[in-house]
């Protein structure tokens, strides 16, 4: 390997001395100039990822607004917005709502349902499993705006859920998204996101050689024991990856709850996730500085969660 490299460098030197401009360029790109290939990607990341983050931190320390005099001339006010943020009952409420939403809809709902469905998909002689898989996939592939409208229609006073409930003699006086905004977005998000966990777990299960199951079966393990001592340890990495990804996504979910509940998050702000809160502050209240502060806090919390996951991954490996 080392020899090969030396050879190519040697060749490049020779080419350089021998002349042609194209040859020289080629040698350059072969050697240290290779990093130039990264430049377009780095420029794009710089413009679309790093700059907005830095700008966001800066804006969160000003009194910038979307309209009014402070849209034109804003001044540096230090960390005042962060103080304002933690005094705002709506923000604290949105923190609570977001955590509950992520735990219930993603970590419990999507992951467990996804795992269950993946296990069912592996079972032989179960009829209609392709149909179930198709339905789950449809929920995942339709645009979020459509899904949001569909859920407001389904949970409307004259929607499907009310119609089903009325069959059992339960009369709904109001629309469900109105009386139970939080529950509606939790269920809608489980419905929407389960497919991803299912795919991930199906792939992980596919990776387990069949003879391991057979060996466990021969050893007399019950189905639960097979799951607990064979399947679970083997897919624990996949579970963690799933947890990391769905946590990030669910914390960032915006369109679906926005379509169902609007930026206020429904009655009593019961479904106002912090993504909705940020939108509400920035676009409805024109207070972009406070919204920027809120999104930075969100970034720190999500980062902490992911680091915690990565740490636990190490632990799981030992286990």
């Amino acid at each position: 390997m080392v020899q090969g490299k030396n050879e190519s460098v040697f060749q490049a030197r020779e080419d350089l001395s021998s002349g042609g401009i194209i040859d020289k360029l080629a040698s350059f790109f072969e050697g240290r100039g290779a990093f130039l290939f990264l430049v377009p990607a780095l420029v794009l990341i710089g413009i679309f990822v790093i700059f907005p983050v830095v700008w966001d931190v800066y804006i969160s320390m000003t009194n910038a607004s979307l309209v009014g005099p402070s849209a034109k001339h804003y001044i540096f006010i230090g960390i005042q917005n962060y103080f304002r943020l933690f005094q705002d009952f709506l923000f604290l409420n949105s923190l609570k709502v977001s955590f509950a939403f992520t735990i219930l809809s993603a970590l419990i709902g999507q992951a467990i349902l996804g795992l269950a469905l993946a296990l069912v998909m592996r079972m032989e002689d179960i009829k209609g499993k392709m149909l179930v898989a198709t339905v789950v996939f449809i929920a995942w592939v339709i645009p979020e705006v459509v899904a949001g409208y569909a859920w407001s229609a389904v949970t409307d006073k004259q929607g499907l859920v009310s119609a089903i409930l009325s069959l059992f003699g339960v009369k709904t006086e109001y629309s469900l998204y109105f009386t139970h905004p939080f529950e509606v977005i939790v269920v809608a998000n489980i419905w929407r996101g389960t497919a991803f966990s299912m795919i991930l777990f199906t792939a992980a299960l596919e990776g387990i050689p069949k003879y391991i199951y057979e060996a466990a079966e021969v050893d007399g393990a019950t189905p639960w024991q097979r799951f607990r001592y064979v399947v679970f340890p083997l897919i624990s990495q996949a579970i963690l990856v799933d947890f990391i990804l769905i946590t990030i996504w669910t914390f960032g979910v915006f369109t679906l709850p926005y379509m169902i509940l609007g930026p206020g998050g429904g009655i009593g702000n019961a479904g106002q996730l912090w993504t909705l809160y940020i939108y509400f502050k920035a676009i409805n209240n024109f207070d972009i500085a406070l919204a920027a502060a809120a999104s930075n806090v969100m970034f720190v919390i999500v980062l902490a969660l992911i680091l915690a996951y990565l740490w636990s991954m190490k632990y799981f490996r030992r286990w």
Partner: protein
Amino acid sequence: MAQKTGAYVAIAFIIGIIIGALGGYFAAPGKTVTTTAVSTTTVTKYATTTATTTATTTATTTATTTALKKVTLTIEYGEPWKDLIDMAIPIFKQKMRAKGYDVTIQKIMLPYGTNFVSRLASDFAAGTAGDVVVYDSFMTAAFASAGYLLPLDTYVQSWPDWKEFPPAMQKIVEYKGHVYGVMVDTDVRMIWYRKDIFKLAGLPTNWQPKTWKDIFDAALKLKSKASEIEKALGINEFYPFYIPAGTKWGEGTTMQGFYMVLLGADKPPYNRLYDYKTDKWIGKSTALYRAFAFYIDVYQKLKIGPIQYNFASDVWGTHRKVFSEGKVAMDVGGSWEWAEGWGPKGVAPLKACKMQCSGQSGSAYDTCYFNCEAKYVGYAKMPGFKGGAEGEPKYVTISGGWAIAINAKIPAYKREIAWEFIKVVASRDVLAKFAAEKGKICPRIDATQVPEYANNAYLKNITEYLKFTDFRDALPGYTKVSKIIQQITEEILSGTITDPMTALNKYDQMLKSAVGANNVEELPVNTEPIYTG
């Protein structure tokens, strides 16, 4: 060797991308507008050899020998002003051709259901707003102070039509002595009511409440007859009285709802959000107390209002639909609803009138429909608390309206062209015809010279309201105050706040934190209940 070939390919690839990107950039005809609702009307390339033009198109014949200068003008407006813009575009294009320009209009039409104010604010902030914008006039101070709007002083001064706009209509678009827009429509607000439902409940079909008590009495009577009304109309829910509340309505809550109550809640100047003598926002007052009490009575104590409609996905569409279906008997709303809400081409036309006039078409259908609408839909002036007995206004209404303005970031060479467009939009015939068609009040005095407008009986009636109309306290900071009102009324809807004093204290506290305690004053509060049955 293979490595070297790879490097050649990579070099060629990078050079290709750079050339492609540069080519794409310079070949693009103009700024690309990234929005969901963009449609482009392109002028057909104006041929330079059209010497055979007929005598009727005199304007087009003037520019036959020289090539026209190509200009693209972007217009951003909400769907309610679609017809106005569409009416103006051909006239404007023809006018511009005569002046040697071939103007392509790029339309950014924000569809119904969009929060126009928020959308425009973010477009301005992002630098993607149109060259010419139609905006809600209460945002004049907020947009102008942000440097988003071009001052139009020199333009309006040399425009003879400017004097046709009455002082109030000139004042709305002014900020710190400069004019920033031209009003394209104005409005008044009232209580819409369903005559057929009133009849069913034994209430007069020609109804005009004189006090707030009259409203509550009528609403309670309707409530007591709810099941009969539901049966007669074939509906499954019924609410007597709807006044906008909560954050979903946005500015609608403050303008359509809260101001209509506040202005009649006490004698002037204590019936406002702002005290112009002390230059402070009012944190506590009898008027504010009574206004919150009104909302609490409607939504919590008497339970005569539909809480959930204030949380619908599309609150505007819902309020129009439920009134049209008879699920709401009284609706505090704007004068445009006569046509835009439940008119023949409105968002939610009345089913009965559609059926009744189904045999007809065109203007005969419209006439038939409006005659029918007058039998079903009535409108009454919003009374003051005790109808003037305590010095408060006898009747109240409030006017706003939308204005057309120029984006401050427009390139200098387009300014004149944008102003020409505004002149066409705000010209007498265009504005008057649009107003008559939409049942809106025309902001120009000379609109009455246009037959379509002058012969409209409905517009004639509501023009009466202009005599006692009022305006918002649209100073910088108003948007923040308005948001607080939306928040507090939402808490009333959700039942978090159930008594007016709590609402008032919370308002005062939120107001102080939003505009600074130094800018807030507290007036004495009379806590007498507003309705005792």
